[in-house]
């Protein structure tokens, strides 16, 4: 009886599926080229833009801050008369820390809300999930976080650092200033740490640095007893930390608890900014190093104004960090591109992008029209007793973006 019914079900559903697929004959076949028309409407006094950040889920703690700095930038621009005389109208969506949701909400912002550009994303997986959506709909995404490089899409502007503006300068710092001869790699198990470590290992091989170990833990893991034991036993000159999120709390507690110090075995982190320091604990982090392109402590008029405004909007305890600054900058850069192009059309904006500059809190940044990244100055920082980060080393001038590491002869993908 049972088998009879399930075979009947199978037969019925496959007939139905086949029949319906057959009726799809009018549709395009693979290999045809896509053509998409934007439904962007610029006839009114406002223009819509989308903010797509994880306001719920594990990434909410970080991405909410990006949402706040984007909102601040939009308010500033509106107070200043808008873009091409049109006020910005924000459509905000929650990416829910899930790649699938990022893809869905990006589609919604483009097709349903007809936004001129979207700002947001944080994790590599959220960016990878959105990339085909923006390419398929020929729309624009501004992605504000440092990432693993090896990517360049015509439809994305990358306003955070690529690897040659963060990871490679960090290694230069460790080699030249800290004179390290060996290193231990600790990271979360996903694409950014794995790609970063691939680059680090090739750099190390070319520069005579010995990699004494490479450990990965799943995102969100808080079990670091064994990892720290291995780090301690290996006795490397420094640790390169690509852990993300809560794992850092467990790692640094364990690190301090097992008697390892910033003086004897410094840890250089690439995912801990001002926002994360209180969560990990100032006591656990003091003296450790970070690599970014912006710190709250940067001594410039533009930055002082940025920090004051941000605190005014979000409370005196609010801190500013690199991804927030990069997001804030991304909105101003888009404004610059649109005004240079004198158009909101994606093709015009992309054509106008090359050479657009903005006097950002981190210093002046310039868009590279070829690979859609920014020229940025690399800064190595050290966590101080107040939980802020002081610059201890700088690349002095902006580094041209090189997402595919073409200018490094030791690199082989």
């Amino acid at each position, binding site marked *: 009886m049972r088998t009879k019914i399930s075979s009947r*079900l199978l037969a019925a559903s496959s007939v*139905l599926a086949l029949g319906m697929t057959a009726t799809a004959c009018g549709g395009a076949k693979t290999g045809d080229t896509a053509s998409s028309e934007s439904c962007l409407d610029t006839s009114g006094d406002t223009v819509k833009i989308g903010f797509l950040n994880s306001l719920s889920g594990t990434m909410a703690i970080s991405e909410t801050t990006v949402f706040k700095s984007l909102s601040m930038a939009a308010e500033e621009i509106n107070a200043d008369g808008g873009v091409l005389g049109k006020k910005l109208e924000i459509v905000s969506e929650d990416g829910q820390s*899930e*790649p699938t949701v990022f*893809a869905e909400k990006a589609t*919604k912002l483009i097709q349903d809300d007809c936004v001129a550009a979207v700002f947001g994303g944080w994790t590599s997986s959220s960016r990878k999930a959105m990339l085909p959506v923006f390419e398929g709909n020929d729309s624009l995404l501004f992605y504000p976080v440092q990432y693993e490089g090896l990517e360049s899409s015509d439809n994305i502007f990358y306003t955070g650092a690529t690897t040659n503006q963060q990871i490679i300068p960090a290694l230069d710092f460790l080699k030249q200033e800290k004179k390290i001869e060996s290193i231990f790699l600790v990271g979360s198990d996903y694409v950014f740490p794995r790609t970063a470590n691939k680059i680090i290992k090739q750099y190390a091989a070319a520069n005579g640095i010995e990699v004494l170990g490479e450990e990965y833990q799943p995102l969100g893991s808080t079990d670091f007893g064994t990892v720290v034991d291995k780090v301690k036993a290996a006795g490397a000159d420094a640790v390169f930390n690509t852990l993300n999120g809560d794992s850092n709390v467990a790692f640094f507690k364990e690190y301090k608890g097992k008697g390892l110090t910033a003086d004897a075995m410094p840890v250089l982190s690439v995912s801990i900014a001002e926002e994360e320091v209180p969560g990990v604990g100032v006591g656990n982090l003091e003296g450790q190093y970070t690599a970014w392109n912006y710190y709250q402590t940067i001594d410039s008029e533009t930055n002082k104004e940025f920090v004051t405004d941000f605190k005014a909007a979000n409370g005196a305890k609010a801190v500013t960090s690199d991804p927030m600054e990069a997001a804030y900058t991304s909105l101003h850069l888009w404004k610059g591109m649109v005004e240079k192009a004198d158009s909101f059309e994606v093709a015009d904006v992309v054509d106008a992008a090359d050479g657009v500059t903005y006097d950002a809190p981190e210093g002046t940044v310039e868009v590279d029209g070829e690979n859609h990244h920014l020229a940025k100055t690399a800064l190595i920082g050290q966590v101080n007793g107040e939980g802020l980060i002081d610059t201890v080393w700088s690349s002095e001038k902006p580094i041209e973006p090189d997402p595919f590491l073409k200018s490094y002869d030791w690199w082989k993908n």
Partner: protein
Amino acid sequence: MKTSKIKHSSPYAGWLLLAIALLVLAPAVLSDFRLGLLAKYCCYAIAAVGIGLAWGRGGMLVLGQGLYFGLGAYAMAMHLKLADAGPGGVPDFMALYGDAAVPWWWEPLRSGAVAVVVILVLPVIVAGLLGLAVFKRRIKGAYFAILSQALAAAFAILLIGQVKTTGGANGLNNFQGFFGYALFDPANKRMLYFVAAGILLVSILAMAWLHRSRFGELLVAVRDGEERVRFLGTDPANVKLAAYVVAAVLASVGGALFVPIAGIVSPDDVGVVASIGLLAGVALGGRASLLGPAVGALLVGYAETSLSEAFPGSWSYFQGALFVLVILLLPGGLAQLVGMAKRTVAHRERPALEEAAAR
């Protein structure tokens, strides 16, 4: 006599309403984007129909259906990646993260026919073996629930760990075509919707048959008195196994359709939270009823989208409140409301009829 007639005809009337809503109404009024979302909810609903059988009718709290949803989804996604790469080609992400070679266990999925067979047969094998091991040993209740959830968690962790061959946390996406049809074309997207809605409707019909069959009666008997069924000479393990396998296949089919519709699958879509999400719709709709699981899954999908669009910062509170309210006020799900409405109507009709008769 009359009430029993209503009872028997109403599932089909409900099914017909759902069919009209899905096949006629929705395509007429919804934009391409919204229809795409409804297609996605249909995929969840297909899995939910299976959960309705295993949990609602069979009493097995299947907390880890994401495992089977994921098996179907990844099998389909791997096939689509290989088809995009062309004969002998290597999927894009493997060149980026891996050693640019297609692993042996990917190779068979180059063929679309093999992919379809895998989607239908792999869940039978996995659920069959697991079910045999579990039900024959008379593991049930919370132990079974925990075990099934642990498997979904383990599957997600396994996928995340294998960046080179599964795309890790990024999952698999950027599909160009679906069995020769370009996915960027809205006409093909609409057809995918019809396929998903059609399979959902057919699977609900199949459930109606199953519910009325000897097997369906036995399943409810096992749920309500497993030992009694055993004493009557039927092995409850076989009955449960069959229901569990059917649920697994439906979840796998839902997952396989999800991939071309959503354009992506990631470990987040198959893990513990996703599995509970599948269950939530079933609980909301009414797990033991025929239409409850599917309608509940469609409603939960719709509610999640519209709440998160209306309140991007605080929607999850509303969703939580909704579940608390349903569990407190309607433990039988929305299907209970329908039952209550019917009873009220019957009560009102009866005096009216008696009055009419007296005259």
